[in-house]
């Protein structure tokens, strides 16, 4: 092995191995510590927000299982997930409040609030334009098709 390659190895592999060992050490230390140890300790507001977010995410999953068709499942999965993510990210931002974690959590939250309604909109639009069936009762009408807008959009899109 040449001297150049050895110096590159020493410059790259040693810090990488050190940081990987630090990460594994932090995870293992937290996993073997007592149950109460987490970043949420001593932040009752952050605990309440994380619990609220978990309740909303669980409600979204229950709605995803129990609702009858694609559009109602999208209703559950989009709105409740946005609110649950709000709770958990706000709780994490409060719990990490010294400078290290808070800006990153706020970045994740901003990106999440930009993208979560957009992906729900994309799924609903392609589901409707592809004609997936929806839950119908007596007297259900499709207002959009009754207005005659369908031919125009499908001519543009397809």
């Amino acid at each position, binding site marked *: 092995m040449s001297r150049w390659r050895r110096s590159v190895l020493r410059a790259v592999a040693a810090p990488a191995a050190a940081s990987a060992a630090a990460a594994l050490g932090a995870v293992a230390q937290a996993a073997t510590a007592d149950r109460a140890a987490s970043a949420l300790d001593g932040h009752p507001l952050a605990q309440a927000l994380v619990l609220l977010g978990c309740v909303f995410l669980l409600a979204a999953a229950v709605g995803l299982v129990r609702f009858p068709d694609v559009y109602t499942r999208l209703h559950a999965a989009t709105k409740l997930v946005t609110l649950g993510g709000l709770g958990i990210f706000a709780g994490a931002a409060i719990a990490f409040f010294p400078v290290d974690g808070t800006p990153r959590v706020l970045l994740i939250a901003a990106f999440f609030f930009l993208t979560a309604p957009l992906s729900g909109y994309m799924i609903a639009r*392609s589901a409707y334009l592809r004609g997936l069936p929806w839950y119908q009762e007596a007297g259900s009408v499709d207002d959009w098709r009754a207005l005659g807008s369908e031919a125009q959009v499908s001519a543009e899109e397809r």
Partner: protein
Amino acid sequence: MVIDIAIVSLTVSGVLATYRVLRGPTWGDRVTAFDFLTVNLAVMVVVAALRTGFTPLLDASLIISILGFLSTVALARYLLRGRVMR
């Protein structure tokens, strides 16, 4: 205590969404539940960062949410038009 409740409830919601991915009668249900699963995974990584206090996990959460959004948009466009991009 709170973090344990959070981990358990996120795991239960992931299992329920996995049921909808496997069972879902149409592809819309599967894509919806897949979107929910990616968001749930990003939130689980944030909760892991809260549990261990290891803040670089938050970067992993950001990348997971970006990949989940892009894959959801790609799936929706593919299922609408039969292609992802022109």
